[in-house]
Every structure is written in C-alpha cells, then in structure tokens.
C-alpha cells in the first residue's frame, strides 16, 4: 500500500482563487506534487475552475465563485492531491543554446571570483545541469528552473538591476532561469539565449511548459547572433530532444 501523502494546505487567495500549498520552501518533491495536481486538474477539469498556475511550492487555482464555493472546490482538490505522484511523467526535453559571459553575461566573472573559481568552470557547472521548468511567472515566458547544482547557489544581488536584457540566463539563490523579456532582476547574469520562450505570431506562442526538462549548451557570440536573427523570424532555436 502506498504511503498516504500529507494533504496540502488550502489557503484562500480572495474569493475567486485557492492557493494549494504543498510546501513553504523550494522543494523538489513539493514541485512534483504541484505539477502532478496541475496535470490531474487538466485531465479531469472541475466545473467552475478557470485556470491553474503552478509555482515551485503551490498551485494557484482560479475559479468562478458563482459556480462553486471554496469548501466544495477545496474537497475536490484535496481528493486529487492525495493521488500518488507518477514516478516519471512524459515530459518534453529541450536543449537551449547560451552564449556565456562578456556583454551577454556581465556577472560571469564576478560569480567566478565569489565562488573562487574560473568563468570556464562556472559555465561547465551550469551546462552540466539537468533542469526542470518548476514554474513560469512574473512576466511572460520567465521560466524558473529547478536542479541548479549546489556549487552555484548564491544569494541574490543586494541591488536588483532595473533593466536586464531579453533572453538573459541567470542564477539566483538555488535557482536558475531564462527570462524572455527585458526587465528588472536581482539575479546574477551568466549569459544570453536567442530562444524566445514567448513570441507573438509564432505557433506556439509559449515554447516551454511547467514540467518540461531543460539542458543548456554553450555557443559562441557569432552563433548567438545568427540564432537571434532566426529566432526573430519565428524559429524555435531550442532543440526538442528525446527524453
């Protein structure tokens, strides 16, 4: 008999959403349960649920309180959340090219100094990682990846930057991420990818899904420039590879 999983906490986010919280921390097992519940709710849609938003540690379930109330929906969610988490799910796997350092990753040298090693070693550690899209949030396509090696864990910057470039690949705390749009960030910028995780007038508009697997491959600046032109024209650039 499978061990009973501890139930998540059901926290109201106002009258039209429930935060289904599996953990307060960044926790891989909790994130797997979040993604499993998200899939279960997609496979068997509950009346009144309008959309679900997976994050590291919780699933935000938006619903219409005219159709279903907090208590009834909470019961149904708890029942789904108690199901065993599938050991391996058929997730997609992407390989994302990154140009590291220089103008594309202005913090690479500093990160190496802080961690008492060389920029090449930082790149080697980052491309060696096997990551999963734990969540996409904040701005369109901002993909938060779990699976960063402990040897790259670093506190975020004291002073967040107001503007970081589109396509930035960065590390912050125990996470790494790919941002699509230019915007503020307090993370350390290691490199840049031509991959657009969000691009209008392309099918699909959003390239990555929460739960997808991701690896990085280092490319030179010339390759990045070519890929960037192709990406602008609508090419994925990210390679989908067999799991």
């Amino acid at each position: 008999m499978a061990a009973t999983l501890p139930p998540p906490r059901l926290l109201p986010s106002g009258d039209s959403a429930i935060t289904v919280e599996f953990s307060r921390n960044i926790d891989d097992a909790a994130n797997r349960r979040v993604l499993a519940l998200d899939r279960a709710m997609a496979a068997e849609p509950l009346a009144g649920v309008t959309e679900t938003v997976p994050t590291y540690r919780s699933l935000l379930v938006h619903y219409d309180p005219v159709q279903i109330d907090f208590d009834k929906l909470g019961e149904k969610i708890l029942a789904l959340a108690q199901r065993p988490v599938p050991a391996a799910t058929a997730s997609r796997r992407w390989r994302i090219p990154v140009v590291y350092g220089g103008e594309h990753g202005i913090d690479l040298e500093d990160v190496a100094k802080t961690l008492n090693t060389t920029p090449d070693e930082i790149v080697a550690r980052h491309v060696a990682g096997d990551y999963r899209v734990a969540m996409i949030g904040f701005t369109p396509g901002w993909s938060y990846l779990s699976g960063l090696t402990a040897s790259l864990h670093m506190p975020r910057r004291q002073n967040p930057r107001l503007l970081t470039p589109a396509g930035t690949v960065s590390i912050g705390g125990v996470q790494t991420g790919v941002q699509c749009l230019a915007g503020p960030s307090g993370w350390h910028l290691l490199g840049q990818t031509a991959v657009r995780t969000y691009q209008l007038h392309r099918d699909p508009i959003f390239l990555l899904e929460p739960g997808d697997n991701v690896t990085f491959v280092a490319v030179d600046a010339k390759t990045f420039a070519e890929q960037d032109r192709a990406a602008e024209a609508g090419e994925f650039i990210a390679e989908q590879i067999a799991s």
Partner: protein
Amino acid sequence: MSKLVIAAIGPASSVQDGGRPGSQRYGLVPSGAVDRLALAAANTLVGNGPFAAAIEIGPFGAKFEARGAVRVALSGAPRNADIAGRPVAPDTSATLADGETLTLGFARGGSFSYLAIEGGIAGEPMFGSLAVNARAGLGSPYPRPLQAGDELQMKEASGAPERRIELPAASDAPIRVVWGPQDDEFADETKTLFLDSEWKISATSDRMGYRLEGPALKHLYGHNIVSDGTVNGSLQVPGNGQPIVLMADRGTSGGYPKIATVISADFGRFAQIPAGRAFRFRAVGVAEAQVEARKFAELLRTLPERLRAIESVDLNIDALHDANVAGHAVSAVDAGTWHAVTLADTTGPD
C-alpha cells in the same frame, strides 16, 4: 466606418476590455479594465456586450474628435463632459456628429472612466482580447497607452435613442478583504493595525499595483517567501512594510508575503479610490466574500434592466448637477507624479 481621433489624453489611459485570462501559467497576466462594473455599464448603454473593448481614461482630461458619427457612453469616475458644448451626464450615452469634439475634464471622486463605443473598437484580438499590456507587447489597435494623435475606428452611429443607466449608489464603505494566503506571516497585532489604520493610495501607483501609505506592517519571519501565484487585489507586503495592492497588470507570481486579498466585488471600487484620499479595510470570511461575488455577478448580468429612456435635455442637466454636488473634491493627484514611477523599478523576479 467612423473614427475617433484622440486630440488630447493624459497618462494611464488605454484600450481595455474583459482581459485575457487563461495564460497565467505562462506568466501572462490577464490585464483588462480595473473597474469591471463601470466598463460593463458603459458598454450596456451603447448595446455592446458587457466586456467589449472601451477606452479606460485615467484621472486627467481628454479630447476626442469624431470623423463620421460616433455613439459613445461614459461611466466610472464622474467628470465634466460635453460634446460641442452640450453637457453629457455620467452614465448616459450620447452621439457625436461628424466633426464634433467630446471634451472630458479631470476625474472627480474616482480615478478611471470608461468611454464605450457603440459596436466596439476595431482591432485585432490577441488571446481573445484587445486589452493593452505594454510590457507583453499586447493590445490593439495600439500595444501601449493611448497618445494624442491616435485614431480608433468603429462603426458609424446607429441613431438609436440615447439611454441612461441607473447604477447602485456609490459606496464609501471600507474595502473588504479576505485574510491570506500568507496572513500567518504576520502577528495578530499587525493584522489589527492593518484593520485599525487609515490608508491612502500613493500617487506613484499604476495598473501593476497601488502602493499604500500608512503604518509599516512588520513581518514575523522576514519579507522573502518562495514565489507563488497572485490575483487581482493581492495585498503584498515588501521589505519596507508598505503594502502594495496588485492590480490588473500585476506580475503573475510574487515573492512577498500577501497578508490579505481585496474581495472581487470591491476590487473596482478600490481601483477608483483617488490617490491621497483616506480609506479603511474590513476583513470578511471567504463565504461572505463569495456571497458578495455572486451579488456582483448578478448586478453585471442584469445591467440591461437598468437602462432608462432620457426624457428631456433638462433631466440631463439635472443629472450632471447632481453628480457635481455628489462628487468629491478634484483629485489631488499631480500630473507630474502619477505613473512617473512604475513598480517594475522596485520589484523583480524572486
């Protein structure tokens, strides 16, 4: 087709509709009108569906010139309005003849007005919506706030008789919130302080978030939490203890504890509170908030039953006079500061 040429418009004015829910899992916020009742009322007046695209007009004045006849309706924050010198009362429809100008004054006792246009605004929907979300490059016909010189296209006015709509009286009651999802990050005294204090909305507020001015709210365990999802009305408390209420263009996730959430039935009323005016919060349970959400949905559904014929021009002027008397002092928002600082400058991914 007719056209409405924007001769003058202030900041914080954009095309908005019911928004584009459904892609928050990819980091795309729904956007849409911050005061859905006012949007729906304006649209109902000109025979549109309640959440058709309209012009959301910020606290400052605006001028629109018609090329061809255009039928419009104004709802939301009261303000002086006239078409070629003929006064237009709040919550009524009116028609601009070819070449006429609609002039709107400053918002009084509110922040946003909605100018609905008969037949809607011509544009190309993305994710089913024309709503502007400049950060994501979305919105049509312009993926940015409106500027002088912009032109909107619409069908020619039908000549239908003008209408007014009877809306429930405006309320100054406290803004109702449901505690959570992270109210356990705050001591009971802090929650009491939150409810017992007067708050004001800072002039450095925008459609991403309204900053609140009042006592600092202390966290029990620090101000960083692992990011989780946000909703319209999430009341997050950053490191300085000054809460920010997340609005229609919020980030879809955030890493500050959320002490409470504005109930959906009060979100539009909250969005309309002018910068600098004191107000309070009141906590209610989820069940009560959901009763209010159902009442609000019923109000939206039955708006067409609230339409009335306009009997005479005299009545029109009376209505305008009443609105003037009932309205509050002119917004204290200063043109130089409103919208000058965006929350993007101070928040980031976490």
